[in-house]
């Protein structure tokens, strides 16, 4: 099993964000996306999820290009974005259970995921009363509530307290030990994950080209 990108280029709003980008992931591996704000980390994650288009290159899995079967690709990944997809009107449990059931998980998995992230005491509370960190934890609980091989995490540690970061890192290690893959965009040092780092600066358009619209 291998997930890879070759010579990817992405243009957003007439600006070249990155080009010539290659990456490859095999089971158990994690990839850290590093780079300044606006260097295209989120764009690359959305592109890996199949949400954003790319203008050149290719994105592939063992069984062929991702473009050929986007629904199959979506089914094997979890994408945790800045926006946490939490409905204030629903309770913590209702929020998580919906995503878990939609992705083929069950109630037990969802309960375990809540416990894992320390939200089990809050399951009956409407999500509007949650703090930013708690909302983010609820969003991360989706990772654990239904299995998926590929985790795409956008700044997963933002707003989290120390304990939650530890819990997340433990879950991530378990996921990788079980043959999962992860791509993590972050500006925070997550410690020694044994992960390779993709420096987005290497793929930025060269200074001579910067600012030139494409």
């Amino acid at each position, binding site marked *: 099993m291998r997930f890879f990108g070759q010579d990817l280029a992405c243009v957003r709003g007439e600006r070249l964000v990155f080009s010539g980008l290659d990456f490859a992931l095999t089971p158990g591996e994690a990839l850290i996306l590093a780079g300044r704000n606006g260097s295209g980390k989120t764009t690359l994650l959305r592109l890996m999820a199949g949400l954003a288009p790319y203008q050149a290159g290719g994105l592939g899995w063992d069984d062929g290009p991702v473009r050929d079967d986007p629904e199959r690709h979506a089914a094997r*990944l979890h994408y945790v*974005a800045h926006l946490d997809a939490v409905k204030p*009107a629903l309770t913590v449990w209702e929020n998580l259970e919906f995503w878990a059931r939609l992705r083929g998980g069950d109630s037990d998995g969802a309960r375990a995921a809540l416990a894992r992230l320390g939200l089990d005491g809050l399951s009956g509370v409407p999500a509007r009363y949650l703090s930013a960190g708690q909302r983010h934890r609820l969003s991360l609980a989706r990772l654990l509530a239904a299995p998926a091989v590929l985790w795409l995490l956008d700044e997963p540690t933002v707003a989290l307290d120390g304990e939650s970061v530890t819990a997340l890192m433990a879950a991530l290690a378990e996921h990788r030990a079980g043959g999962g893959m992860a791509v993590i965009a972050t500006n925070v040092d997550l410690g020694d994950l044994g992960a390779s780092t993709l420096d987005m600066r290497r793929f930025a358009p060269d200074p001579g080209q910067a600012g030139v619209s494409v």
Partner: protein
Amino acid sequence: MNAFTIIVGRELRLALRQSGDSAIIVMFFVLAAVLFPFGLGPEPNLLARMAPGVVWVTALLAAMLSFERLFLADYEDGSLEQLALGPAPLALVALAKALAHWLTTGVPLMLAAPLIGVLYHLPEDGYAPLIVSMILGTPTISLIGTVGAALTLGARRGGVLLSLLVLPLVVPVLIFGAGAIDAAINGFPVRPQLMVLGGILLAALALCPWASAASVRQALE
């Protein structure tokens, strides 16, 4: 199919938690209809003559108020992105949203419509076609509104733009919906109008989910 019922269930639950939204739509419907006699005078024959058109026009205007949030809330909090990555094709998501919208807005409007008929002295013969035309017409409105809501995602003043887009598209529903009631009052057969309404509903059912899905995909890029 399973994903479809899960999404409809969530939409209904959300609507139930925010049930004030549906109540406001129905109140707008009744209030707008009540305004006409104040402007035109209380002459019973005139009101009975106007009833079919007033019911349908005000129902359409009331429905316009409800479309803006249809996709926007999910778009703003990231749920739409997650739904797009879910197992259900986006067209099915759009269909689920249209069904939930009809159940929470179309059905209440339908139930309130006879009340307006009473206020306007609608002749007895008009009630059955009123209900049947509403049953056939309101789902079409929900479906077309879904397309409008998807098209205006991310636009400034999306709500106004949405009305401008959707209102012209629902004119056929208005013509044949009001026409059916008119025909019944005047002793003509109502079957043709209702058949056309049914036809429009089937066409909307076949086309609107795809159009919504394409627009949502565009908005997410």
